[in-house]
């Protein structure tokens, strides 16, 4: 082999190596099922539709839905892609940054609100008629309300219910046939369980939304208004419950909640339907001994959902077609069909009336499904209706944790939280 040829060969090998590595870094086609773009043979509008972690489990449902839609709308072609939960937000941001935004995107409410506050999403209050908007539960539809605009169409949802350990409740002398209706009832039950058993009463998530559940306002205009005697009194009540051993002094992540309830260290827990599967696996005995009822409400009379939504990025080149398709996916009939396929709850009023949700077969799953669908009339998703809601939320969360867990002074922490929120609102 000549020396010159060796030199060329070496360079070629290095070049190929670099090319190979860079090709591996390319995101095109990785983890998605891109059906390719239109070749323009029949001038169809292509609507790029992104979902989160629904392939391959629900391929049949979506393929049928898309086929039906394309049949009803011959000028439209739906290009469905699916991304993992962790990747979708970054993927969307980079697509928007590179001016290749998709048309319809599945996002949770937090992400949708964040994108909306940056002016990146289409306002459905401008795009839809009152009749079209009226199909959704108002509380859930308003979850992405910012000023006059609403930036997401609610899709499938889940609403936490109250799980009660029957034997602990009975040991505490509580009648499980009359479950707690309000947060006050829940605290009283919790006290009884803590007094009469070796367990905590219930798990409490020390979040900003807990203040909203009691009907207190966080902000008004561009001012924080939560640093007042009523809120302090409410927080002090929770501190007393922690000190009395009614609430564990902890921020239990989901797996830890399962652990606490599954090992009977806590008598009651407000959690989602996915809690059941975890509990069934971790503690079959406790699963057999648990009942589900609608979650008690605070003074505001609301229950928070965990909703998945569909949004349309402002950059979409087919806003009308995208809006029409997003509304089609989230209409009564399709939400009901998806709820049956995926064991979720619909966010539309008519779909929620279907008998499918009321066939309580006595199992914990059946009880939870009925309890949660009955809760939908009071459903809302966490929102503040302001820009930088995420910043405000996390700022207050941190100070609440300082109060509840880090034993910091209530007055000083609320004052610090108020200042921080005012700074965020002044940006």
């Amino acid at each position, binding site marked *: 082999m000549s*020396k*010159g040829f*060796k*030199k060329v060969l*070496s*360079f070629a090998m*290095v070049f190929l*190596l*670099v090319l190979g*590595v*860079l090709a591996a*870094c390319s995101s095109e086609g990785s983890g998605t099922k891109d059906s390719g773009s239109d070749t323009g043979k029949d001038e169809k509008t292509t609507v790029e539709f992104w979902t989160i972690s629904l392939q391959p489990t629900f391929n049949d449902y979506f393929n049928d839905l898309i086929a039906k839609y394309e049949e009803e709308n011959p000028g439209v072609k739906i290009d469905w892609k699916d991304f993992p939960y962790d990747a979708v*937000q*970054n993927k969307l*941001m*980079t697509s*928007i*940054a590179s001016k290749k935004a998709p048309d319809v995107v599945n996002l949770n409410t937090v992400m949708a609100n*964040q*994108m909306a506050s*940056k*002016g*990146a999403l289409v306002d459905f209050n401008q795009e839809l008629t009152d009749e079209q908007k009226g199909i959704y539960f108002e509380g859930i539809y308003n979850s992405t309300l910012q000023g006059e605009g609403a930036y997401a169409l609610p899709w499938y949802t889940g609403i936490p219910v109250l799980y009660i350990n029957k034997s602990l409740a009975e040991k505490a002398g509580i009648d499980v046939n009359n479950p707690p209706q309000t947060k006050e009832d829940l605290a009283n039950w919790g006290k009884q369980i803590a007094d009469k058993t070796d367990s905590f009463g219930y798990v409490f998530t020390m979040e900003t939304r807990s203040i909203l559940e009691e009907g207190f306002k966080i902000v008004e205009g561009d001012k924080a208004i939560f640093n007042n005697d009523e809120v302090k009194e409410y927080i002090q009540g929770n501190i007393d419950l922690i000190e009395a051993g009614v609430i564990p*002094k*902890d*921020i239990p992540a989901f797996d*830890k909640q399962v*652990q606490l309830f599954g*090992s009977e*260290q806590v008598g009651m827990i407000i959690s989602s339907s996915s809690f059941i599967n975890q509990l069934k696996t971790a503690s079959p005995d406790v699963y057999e001994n648990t009942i589900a009822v609608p979650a008690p409400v605070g003074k505001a009379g609301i229950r928070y959902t965990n909703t998945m939504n569909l949004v349309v990025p402002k950059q979409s080149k087919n806003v009308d077609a995208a809006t029409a398709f997003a509304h089609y996916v989230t209409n009564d009939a399709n939400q009901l069909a998806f709820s049956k396929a995926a064991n979720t709850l619909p966010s539309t009023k008519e779909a929620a009336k279907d008998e499918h949700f009321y066939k309580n077969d006595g199992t914990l799953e059946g009880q939870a499904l009925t309890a949660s669908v009955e809760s939908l009339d009071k459903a809302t998703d966490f929102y503040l209706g302001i820009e*930088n809601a*995420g*910043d405000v939320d*996390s*700022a207050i969360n*941190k*100070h609440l*944790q*300082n109060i509840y*867990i*880090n*034993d*910091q002074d209530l007055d000083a922490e609320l004052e*610090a939280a108020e200042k*921080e929120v005012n*700074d965020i609102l002044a940006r």
Partner: protein
Amino acid sequence: MGKKRTVGFSRFSEVQTAWLFMAPGLLLLALFTFWPIIFSLPLAFTNYSVIGETSFVGLDNFKRAFSDVDFIASIKNSLLYMIIVPFIQIISILMAILVNQKIAGIKFFRTAYYIPVVTSMVAVAIIWGWLMSSNGVLNYLLMSVGLLDEKINWLSDKDTALWALMFITLWKGLGYYMMIYLAGLQAVPTDCIEAAKIDGASNFQIIRKIILPLLKPYVFFCTLISLMAAIRVFDEVFVLTSGGPGNSTLTSSVYIYQQGFEQFEFGYSSALGLIVSFIIMFFSIFIFVFNRKGGVNPY
């Protein structure tokens, strides 16, 4: 330098060959490390959010950073995290001395100590999370031997959470630094040690007066990289506490990530990144200067 090789790449100098082999790595570094660093400099003076309108904001991001209580708390925690640096050096040097013995089965111990290094930090964090939970093995053991009266939520208690995370970082990093020190120990000339033994030096004297001075370049290198790693700690904090409870475990890297990828404040997070980079640079220069002046004198 520039010397022609006689076999293989005969028309390449050694330098050219070296560059050729480094090229793929350098190209990737340029694309995914140097370019983002350079790109983040102008970003720090804007309100860039990827998806919204971008405008120049001057020094606003920096002003905001210095009045941001969360950022200040994160810097304090990151600086506090540097406490683990001397512990890592001392323990890993001792471990290196231990595994440098010529005894049966020593390779097993070297491998065992190194396993945490090659284990994913996320997996390590989750396992330690279980061990340190209030019903975990750690509480059980400590209560069994009477060191604890009641259960501690190691990762949810503001007084213990940061220390627990530091311990996890220490535990995972020891094997890595041990290997570097082991390489250093094996480079210590045996004739020096034998001469010292003939002169009647004890093992302790040999370590203090011969081994440690000869390990100085390794100590300098390990101190520098472990200090940088301590300030930039991310994985274990993000997985186990996300900075909570309150701000008690919030480190600068986690806060920068939260501002960028959760709040879309990329301009602000770039400014924070620059500030943290300057802090790291300051400590690095300090260590360089300290080392040039002789460093710690063990004898």
